[in-house]
């Protein structure tokens, strides 16, 4: 628990690491907008290729980015399937006759049950699920004998397929870009960059320095509070609370026995911290000098120009096409 990593920063050395956090933040937003505006199939592929090459030239391990994508795999997959099944515009591009017979239904159920029973032992769960889905369709398509109930067709439409493709690639690009940002930027630098980028909000009387201070203190105290939670859990466990087992009702009680002390301790801590900060001359909203400064390099200008050019290109091609 002591060596917990906040954020997903991975130390490394490449041009992505030496870039100013402000550049990375603005470029992320610009490129995201660009990814949303792309309409042509070819441009989308090029964009995906460019982002992937950014990974390679920035010396970021593809595995890390995959780990960033993995929690969202299901969502990606689901939107893809959803679009294919329910978007029925444009031309039919794929027709698969299906036969619902007693035998095929029985076989499909058998496949599903087999999948359900074995899925926990398979490493590539999503791939396994895909294979199962294909297998079920194959069963309905090929087994056309044995007491036929009804016939059906599975249709894929052009519009459905292209929308599904665009949504998926867009999401992948966005997730990849933001993963690049979090991998190559320390949380503290990111925070400082965010503070500076949002500085214009001062016009509407939002004090970005204060927000940045809150975020940095939150970052600072996450490991401390996790440690505390661990201690409390051990203390409760020694009094017979079992955090792993039990019914839902018991679990709620157990969680409360963790949350209540955590809540009280956090308030005591924040009270102490507020005193310590004030005693060291901190006055909210007062101007402060800063130890950390951000330096704008030529690389940042180049990166900025390139991302805006990409956005302009996308907008122009959208208008022209």
């Amino acid at each position, binding site marked *: 628990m*002591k060596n917990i990593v906040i954020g997903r920063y991975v130390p490394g050395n490449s041009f992505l690491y030496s870039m100013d956090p402000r550049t990375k933040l603005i470029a992320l937003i610009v490129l995201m907008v660009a990814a949303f505006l792309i309409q042509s199939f070819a441009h989308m592929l090029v964009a995906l290729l460019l982002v992937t090459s950014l990974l390679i030239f920035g010396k970021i391990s593809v595995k890390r980015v995959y780990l960033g994508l993995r929690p969202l795999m299901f969502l990606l997959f689901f939107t893809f399937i959803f679009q294919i099944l329910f978007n029925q515009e444009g031309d039919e591009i794929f027709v698969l006759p299906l036969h619902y017979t007693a035998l095929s239904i029985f076989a499909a159920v058998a496949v599903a049950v087999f999948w359900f029973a074995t899925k926990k032992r398979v490493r590539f769960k999503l791939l396994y699920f895909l294979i199962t889905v294909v297998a079920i369709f194959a069963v309905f398509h090929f087994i056309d004998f044995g007491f036929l109930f009804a016939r059906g067709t599975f249709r894929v439409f052009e519009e459905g397929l292209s929308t599904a493709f665009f949504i998926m690639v867009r999401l992948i690009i966005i997730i990849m870009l933001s993963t690049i940002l979090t991998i190559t930027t320390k*949380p*503290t630098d990111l925070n400082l960059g965010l503070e500076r980028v949002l500085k214009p909000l001062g016009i509407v009387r939002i004090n970005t320095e204060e927000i940045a201070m809150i975020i*940095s*203190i939150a*970052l*600072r105290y996450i*490991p*401390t509070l996790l*440690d505390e939670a661990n201690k409390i859990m051990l203390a409760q466990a020694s009094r017979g609370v079992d955090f792993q087992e039990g019914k839902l009702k018991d679990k709620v009680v157990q969680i409360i026995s963790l949350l209540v002390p955590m809540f009280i301790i956090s308030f*005591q*801590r924040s009270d*102490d*911290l507020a*005193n*310590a*900060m*004030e*005693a*060291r*001359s*901190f*006055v909210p909203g*007062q*101007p*402060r*000098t*800063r*130890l*950390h*400064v951000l330096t704008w390099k030529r690389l940042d200008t180049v990166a900025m120009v390139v991302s805006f050019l990409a956005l302009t290109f996308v907008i122009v091609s959208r208008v022209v096409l």
Partner: protein
Amino acid sequence: MSVIEIENVSFTYHGDKRALDNVSLSIEKGEWVSILGHNGSGKSTLSKLIVGLLKPQSGTIRVDGITLSASTVRDIRKRVGIVFQNPDNQFVGVTVRDDIAFGLENLQIERPEMIERIEHYAKKVDMYPYLNKEPHALSGGQKQRVAIAGILAMKTDVIIFDEATAMLDPEGRERVMEFMRTLNREGTTIIPITHEMKEAVMSDRIVVLKDGKVLKADKSENILKDKETLERSNLELLLPLEIMHYMNENGIDNPSLKEFLWQLSLNG
């Protein structure tokens, strides 16, 4: 010249009984004055009053001749620093460097000067190799030393140690005590607030608080031997002095042993 003057100060927490009742004391520049008291004696309240974290209901507090008020509190905090009890709850920065910088940023010190001071004071408390470390990689004693460096960097004249060694292991405590000694020799006014007799032995004077009142304020050697006062405020005599008392009460006369016991107690 008195650096801290407290006159007839009373303070009551919201709806509670009096935490401080008509307290008056003054502390000279460069002095080492321990404020000794049991839990609930009001000693921590006193430290919070001195830096203006709490506002007294009556009485005045002067630091360096400046009377504490809402408009002068910032000036006073430039002169008085506090090291608090819990090492974790006063660590503001994400790293040691950031934490020492925190107070300097607040005082609007220019960056080159800031860097210079951070390095100088980090070296002074032997935390220079740890400048880029995060707090959870440090021991309690190390965090406390960072807190001391953070206050030293602000160049305050007075440092209050509010039970600053209570949560440390013996080694960490010894290190912090050592810094108190060095700083005092260099002219900083040191005010440890504690219930540990051991921590008070080295001070010039001791102020004993009980139930929000000053029970006795005298030179340390007098207080250390004053069994009656200490017992009234629920404090324990140091073991060698306890033996000395026993000898006195039972008429055992051995001047060289007494001298030895006295030296023993002074060395903690």
